[in-house]
């Protein structure tokens, strides 16, 4: 399936404009205060390609924070009607870690015997144009999650762009990707062997530029979390830094816990799901008041177990942390990002 093309850098906006004819394009936009976020764009001029990974992952475009699932009417009895979002979308310039998170969602929510209809519908109507990373972002550690800085064929992207100076190397990996190229085929020319070699060299160079050696983060800590050999006291001391805000899970591109609620007025109601968090006591509290995870330490332990245990790796087919580093940035206790907690577990030390 895979083939490689070139796109002159001066012309990528023309491509985006062509994509807009058939799809909503969602891309990184610089907002007030200099934050970059994924937004629906109306013009390619809004897009910035000069960005660290946005604070918010594009998760919400596939799995919204509040998502209507069905509507019901009371009309004597009840009639129930599912609500599907079939908007055709292109996610433009998303990072390899976030593409990998979509692959994780496919495995977790899309499992073939029980697919999540709402996610599957959105997913089927969304295409991904990845932008590989020539240099690591400040907090990320994709090399240890094996999700970047660039993705191999089959990594989940439809098209992957690599910045090679005056032009992009454009790898097309799926039939959806071919459709995206087909929106403006004249903009693309064939890539050369040298382009691919340059890409490989960039990949190596980027790996060398991570601030610390991040490969340390997972191997030992995954093993300890998987066999439950982390001292309870270590969990407790780490959890003292947690204010249970749920920021790490909201911001995480692979977190998908949700709650379901009904809202109704005048015989018409909507059932919605909304993001929930393993960091909230309410996730596991039962009607009787009993809570199997009564303390924050149990909830911190839970988060790490779902992210890096072998058991979940085997169940989901992929590790639950893609190394984007957002939890490092968002934690108001500063210290409970996955790498910090992983490192503390590895060293059995928390100062």
């Amino acid at each position, binding site marked *: 399936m895979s083939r490689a093309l070139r796109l002159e850098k001066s012309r990528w906006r023309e491509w985006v404009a062509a994509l807009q004819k058939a799809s909503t394009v969602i891309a990184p936009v610089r907002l007030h205060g200099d934050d970059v976020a994924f937004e629906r764009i109306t013009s390619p001029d809004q897009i910035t390609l000069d960005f660290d990974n946005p604070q918010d992952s594009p998760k919400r475009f596939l799995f919204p924070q509040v998502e209507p*699932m*069905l509507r*019901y009417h*009371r009309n004597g*009895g*009840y*009639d*129930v009607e*599912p609500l*599907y979002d079939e908007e055709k979308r292109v996610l433009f310039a998303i990072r390899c870690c976030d593409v990998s998170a979509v*692959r994780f969602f*496919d495995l*977790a*929510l*899309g*499992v*073939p015997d*029980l*697919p*999540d*209809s*709402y996610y*599957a*519908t959105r*997913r*089927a109507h969304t295409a991904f144009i990845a932008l590989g990373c020539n240099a690591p972002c400040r907090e990320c550690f994709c090399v240890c999650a094996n999700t970047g800085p660039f993705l191999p064929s089959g990594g*989940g992207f439809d098209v992957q762009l690599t910045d090679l100076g005056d032009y992009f190397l454009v790898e097309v990996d*799926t039939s959806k990707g071919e459709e995206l190229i087909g929106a403006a085929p004249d903009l693309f020319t064939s890539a050369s062997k040298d382009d691919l070699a340059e890409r490989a060299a960039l990949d190596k160079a980027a790996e060398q530029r991570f601030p610390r050696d991040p490969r340390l983060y997972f191997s030992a800590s995954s093993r300890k979390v998987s066999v*439950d050999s982390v001292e309870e006291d270590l969990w407790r001391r780490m959890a003292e830094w947690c204010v249970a805000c749920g920021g790490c899970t909201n911001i995480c591109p692979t977190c*998908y*816990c*949700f*709650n*379901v*609620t*009904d809202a*109704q007025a005048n015989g018409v*109601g909507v*059932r919605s*799901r909304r993001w*929930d968090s*393993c960091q909230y006591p309410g*996730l*596991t*509290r*039962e*009607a*009787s008041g*009993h809570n*199997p*995870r009564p303390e924050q330490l*149990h909830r911190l332990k*839970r988060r790490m*177990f*779902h992210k890096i*245990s072998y*058991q*979940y790796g*085997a*169940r989901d087919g992929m590790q639950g942390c893609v190394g984007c580093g957002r939890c490092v940035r968002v934690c108001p206790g500063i210290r409970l990002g996955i790498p910090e907690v992983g490192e503390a577990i590895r060293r059995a030390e928390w100062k």
Partner: protein
Amino acid sequence: MEVMERRPNIYLPQIARITGVRDETPDTKTFVFRFRDDETHAAFTWRPGQFVELSVFGLGEAPFGFASSPTRKGSFEITIRAVGALTRALHAMGPGDEVGIRGPLGNSFPYDEVQRRNILFIAGGIGLPPLRSLIQNMFDERDKFGDITILYGARTPTDLVYKSELKEWEQRSDIKFMVTVDRSEPGWQGNVGMVPTLFPKAGVKPDGTVAYMCGPPVMIRFVIQDLVSMGFADEDIISTLERHMKCGVGKCNHCCIGHKYVCRDGPVFSYKQMKGLLE
């Protein structure tokens, strides 16, 4: 990735009507349901141990185990104690009222694989309804099983569910059935004491016996200890685990124990499986 199939929608409830309500105890009722759509109703079946997500529209969904056997078609029954907003609203509903039903969900009690073996049921309080589904099923295929013993305990005689059906069970000569209560009440002439006090009276023995139990967590814990010390194999001790199941299909993460989902990998687990759960 291949485009995933959208349908069937695993979150979409079917409309069912309440066709009957029976009072069991002051806070517990048994509801009889029938799907509004005849075709849906005819196609619907389940296995004992499975559950449904029941919608009270406007309040949401909650999980409940089947209380009746799939061998008794025509309707299905669920026994519900009023403890929260949804169950209280349900208790205010009656024949003709409509609810949403999603299911059957979850795994089920071992059935085919225990044929010809001796069966022991241990139920505490509101734990009897899910076992009743299996008990009725075994009664309807009685010749497939060895000895059947049913031990049932409740806090008080008032708290016993299925009172008239229990009388029928007492009359049966092809099973052993005993009841006990934690606290007696005027007029009660039966056993008093926790469920395990029935074990010697009933002659509970491990030989070839599979034990199914359902009840409050504290009862389960003690009963498991007793059975293990009597020599029951870990894989022959079967129970259901209770967690806050929200979606019922292994997606929402409310009911996880370790990497297992009570709603999807359970709710039925053997003691052997329970011991392997990390949490």
